[in-house]
């Protein structure tokens, strides 16, 4: 079944496919899908005329026809899943191929007590109430066409639920893979992560493909952090060179919860991230870190939105981009301090390093404050390498290329220091080093 990114085509696809989606017997679910389709019908897909899409032209994506149920080359996938393993990570692995959960490729045979981790479709089939209670709860009402599309065809993905008081000691790694080929797959995984009161978990979302074919990932993740609960979510985007990736991540936090979200965008032709955190109850803290590493003609757009709903919440946001060649980054960071959110403590920063004259960044920090007793700061800088620093390193005997590599690497690497898992950090370090061509001298540089 193929589809184009316009309303009519999506409606047609829906008519012929909706009967085959999981849980058709569940009225609430069918209703969700229909509502989402209606929303899509009303809003359509965004264009550059939308303020929020001013710098991101999705015609690069809309010109293709995508296949919703592309076939999967299982042998090839099995090999790729294996080679994508980060050995020292020692994670529980959930593998998603073209948006569908693959138990056969996953490593979740022995889950610790208090942890449910597996496919969303299976969860809907076996315990629909456990999904109904959460799905869609974190989505804003005025979402854009892509999240409505994900919602309308919601079918499979990931379901993770940590029971109250449980600390999951091993990271849970979700590997979203693509099996492309003659057709351009559209993968629409939906991920739900529920961390109950006092529980704690580290989730690593990896979007991986070495494919040079066209495809589109349109992912939506919802994260619910209960009172006193903690989550670190590391989202690492290593999509194919012709891939589009539209990723929504919606986080809701309760009293004294703590969420750290690291978004590392490495590969992919066009990446658009919408990250929204809602601090619903007092004492919640969210840390958002981002790194966009662009080269060639890559386009990486990070839209973030933090809602300070309740008082005494803290948000920290640090986004960096390093852009070479003709790549382009967009950062739009919106922080809204609602009227009851007294004693809000919020800080936001966006720093960009341009390595080429043709690279470009559009940055727009935006602060809206409706409470009077708050502490908020934000800022953005765009610059080139500090030539005095290059000179300084050279006077110590370090060759020019290495000096530039060291400084660029240091700039980028400081964006990942909140990733607590050492093995993962080492992996990302290597990827950053390779992509920047930063040279061997930067090995052993990290703090």
């Amino acid at each position, binding site marked *: 079944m193929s589809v184009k990114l316009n309303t009519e085509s999506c409606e047609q696809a829906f008519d012929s496919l909706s009967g085959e989606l999981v849980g058709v017997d569940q009225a609430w679910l069918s209703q969700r899908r229909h509502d989402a389709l209606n929303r899509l019908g009303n809003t359509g897909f965004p264009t550059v005329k939308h303020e929020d899409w001013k710098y991101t032209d999705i015609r690069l994506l809309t010109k293709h026809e995508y296949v919703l149920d592309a076939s999967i080359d299982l042998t090839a996938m099995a090999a790729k899943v294996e080679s994508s393993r980060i050995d020292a990570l020692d994670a529980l692995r959930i593998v998603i191929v073209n948006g569908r959960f693959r138990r056969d490729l996953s490593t979740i045979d022995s889950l610790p007590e208090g942890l449910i981790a597996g496919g969303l479709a299976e969860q809907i089939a076996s315990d629909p109430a456990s999904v109904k209670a959460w799905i869609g709860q974190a989505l804003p009402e005025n979402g854009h066409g892509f999240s409505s599309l994900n919602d309308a065809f919601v079918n499979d993905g990931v379901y993770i639920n940590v029971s109250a008081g449980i600390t999951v000691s091993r990271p849970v790694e979700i590997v979203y893979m693509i099996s492309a080929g003659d057709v351009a797959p559209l993968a629409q995984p939906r991920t739900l992560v529920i961390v109950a009161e006092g529980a704690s978990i580290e989730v690593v979302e990896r979007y991986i493909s070495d494919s040079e074919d066209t495809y589109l990932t349109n992912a939506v993740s919802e994260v619910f952090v209960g009172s006193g609960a903690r989550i670190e979510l590391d989202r690492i985007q290593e999509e194919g060179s012709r891939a589009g990736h539209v990723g929504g991540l919606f986080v809701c936090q309760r009293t004294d919860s703590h969420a750290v979200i690291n978004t590392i965008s490495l590969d992919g032709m066009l990446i658009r991230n919408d990250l929204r955190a809602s601090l619903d109850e007092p004492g919640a803290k969210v840390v958002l870190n981002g790194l966009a590493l662009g080269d060639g003609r890559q386009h990486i757009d990070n839209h973030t939105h933090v809602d300070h709903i309740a008082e005494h919440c803290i948000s920290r946001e640090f986004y960096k981009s390093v852009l070479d060649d003709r790549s382009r980054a967009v950062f739009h960071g919106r922080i809204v301090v609602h009227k009851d959110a007294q004693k809000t403590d919020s800080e936001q920063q966006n720093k960009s390093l341009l390595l080429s004259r043709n690279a470009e960044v559009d940055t727009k920090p935006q602060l809206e404050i409706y409470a009077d007793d708050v502490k908020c700061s934000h800022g953005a800088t765009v610059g080139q390498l500090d030539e005095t620093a290059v*000179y300084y390193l050279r006077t110590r005997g370090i060759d020019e290329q290495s000096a530039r590599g060291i400084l660029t690497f240091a700039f980028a690497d400081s964006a990942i220091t909140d990733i607590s898992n050492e093995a993962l950090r080492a992996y990302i370090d290597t990827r950053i080093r390779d992509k920047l061509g930063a040279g061997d001298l930067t090995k052993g540089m990290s703090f």
Partner: protein
Amino acid sequence: MLTIKNLHATVVGKPILKGINLEIGDGEVHAIMGPNGSGKSTLANVIAGREGYEVTEGTITYKGKNLFDLAVEERAREGIFLAFQYPVEIPGVSNIYLLKAAVNAGRKHRGEPDLDAMGFLKLVREKLKLVEMRDEFLHRSINEGFSGGEKKRNEILQMAMLEPTLAVLDETDSGLDIDALKIVANGVNSLRSAERSMIVVTHYQRLLDYIVPDYVHVLAQGKVVKSGGKELAHELEAHGYSWVGDDAKAAAG
């Protein structure tokens, strides 16, 4: 060691050095004094090879070689060290990392193997003691958040690690309290040897009480207007720059 002949240099097209002649022999310590803006740092940067400092006339010969044939990093590996008047802060790169990379760059140049972790640590501990810095400094970003005095000591630490043959210290004494001044001077003196030469740029006689120079030169308006022995510094201290000649007088306003 270093021979500077009729050196003219411009910075962003503006002539700054206007015919400098200097001869620095092996093991000698030369102090360079002179009013603000006279070109002392410019000379130091021309020796180190900084881009944008264009030599329009003259020569510098270092250990028998044309210095201008060497890139900045090659000069460093050949034993030239510049202690910056304003040391640069480099967030995200730790001191210890720089020291290791710098030491090994020099060793590689000399055909020696990298220092192993144990050997390196032993060396760095020894040198830390020399400049009385705590271990903690090793793991901080280069000069980031360092006090003025700590930055200067950090320069001396790097120098001590690299054991240069020609060290150019650009106002390493400015901003130091009296104890730090002694520490820095001590560090410098411990490196004095028959094979190592030094150019010490300073405004103050005080430093030269601790690092006793063989020669003192006065730079004014891009020229050496007077040279002499260590007594010259005392006379300058007593009489000011206007004493040394018209050029200096003009420069001093």
